[in-house]
């Protein structure tokens, strides 16, 4: 499926009308998707909130959502889950600004550092306390006004030790979706790393196409499109959106080219 996606990406340059038709990706949710019914007089609002990897995909994702003309999306930086009142105030501000019907959330690398810090500082004393003390209070906060959450498990990263730790966090995120009816879980790896971490994927002619940055964490522009395509399918399913056929090509046309097609690290 990723090969198909990359084929569509690479063929977009020839101007063929169907070159960047959205890739149909299977839903990774294990429960029936709950369709969201926002206020009839307003476009559905999507808050995309999370770390720098989600921020990279949020560019094309928000573009694609807005391009439907059927919903509006904004990104808010929230690289780790709130731990204190100050953090919660920032999230609350983003919620009030966007009044979301759907919140797309993903945290990984920063959360890994924060969790380690929590243990170092004694804020988390027991390994199993993270869900009760961090995750659930966060979900309580963001769902208080009735929004649903699409929790995106972080894309696997190159460093094996960190990857193993983040896998543990991801298990907590999966379990969250099983116990909280307002939360669905999807895994970014479904679209950008189905067979584990890889910097490149084969393009339509067999040539490698960069999808991950050299830092081992972030997404190249084509990786951003892959993740955005997958998440767009999930968002569209929940909000009843019809993605524009040429959104990916239109998004690319507005981007400054990166050196070598993919800079080595995060591009703020």
């Amino acid at each position, binding site marked *: 499926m990723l090969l198909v996606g990359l084929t569509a990406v690479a063929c977009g340059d020839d101007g063929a009308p169907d070159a960047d038709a959205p890739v149909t990706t299977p839903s990774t949710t294990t429960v029936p998707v709950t369709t969201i019914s926002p206020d009839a007089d307003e476009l559905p609002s999507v808050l995309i909130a999370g770390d720098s990897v989600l921020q990279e995909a949020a560019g094309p994702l928000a573009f694609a959502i807005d391009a439907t003309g059927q919903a509006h999306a904004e990104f808010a*930086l929230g690289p780790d889950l709130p731990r204190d009142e100050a953090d919660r105030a*920032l999230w609350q501000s983003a919620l009030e600004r966007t009044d979301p019907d759907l919140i797309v959330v993903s945290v990984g690398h*920063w959360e890994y550092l924060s969790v380690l*810090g929590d243990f*170092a500082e004694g804020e988390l004393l027991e390994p199993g306390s993270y869900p009760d003390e961090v995750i659930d209070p966060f979900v309580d906060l963001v769902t208080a006004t009735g929004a649903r959450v699409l929790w995106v498990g972080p894309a696997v990263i190159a460093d094996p030790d960190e990857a193993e730790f983040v896998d543990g966090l991801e298990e907590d995120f999966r379990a969250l979706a099983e116990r909280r009816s307002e939360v669905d879980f999807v895994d970014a790896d479904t679209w950008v790393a189905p067979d584990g971490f890889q910097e490149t994927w084969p393009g339509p002619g067999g040539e490698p196409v960069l999808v991950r940055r050299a830092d081992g964490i972030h997404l190249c522009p084509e990786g951003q499109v892959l993740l955005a395509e997958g998440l767009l399918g999930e968002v569209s399913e929940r909000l009843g959106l019809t993605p524009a056929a040429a959104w990916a090509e239109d998004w690319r046309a507005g981007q400054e080219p990166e050196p070598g097609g993919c800079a080595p*690290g995060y591009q703020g």
Partner: protein
Amino acid sequence: MKATLATVVIALLTLAGCGGDDGGGEATDTTSGSETTEATTEDLSSYETITELNDDLGAAGIECTLEYEGLVDEVREISQCPIDGAPAILTVWYDDGLLTEFLATDPEAVAYGANWTVELSDPATATSVADAAGGTTTDA
């Protein structure tokens, strides 16, 4: 001690040279029905970027190897590093209102200036950071 005082003087001179401090206004508690915390940010330093803030910390001998140069969205630039072995979160705020809301929660061990914060876990470290960067702390 002399070195420390010199560092503070340098930091304050640096602060004066930072420019860009348009007053910053006051950070006041906008919540109602609770104790108010008023944190005046007038005359405190401001920074254009996390890197500039971190440079002043480094000049004062506070080691902070940033995870990133800074993650950026419309309202802030944010990065993190360990300081004295504990996580620290550095933020340069583009939105005065958000900085006000942040400080109004009366967080502990936060060094801050006109448009920046460094979240720490130890008030003494927060004081060192504030001294180095021309700010104050929420514990002051």
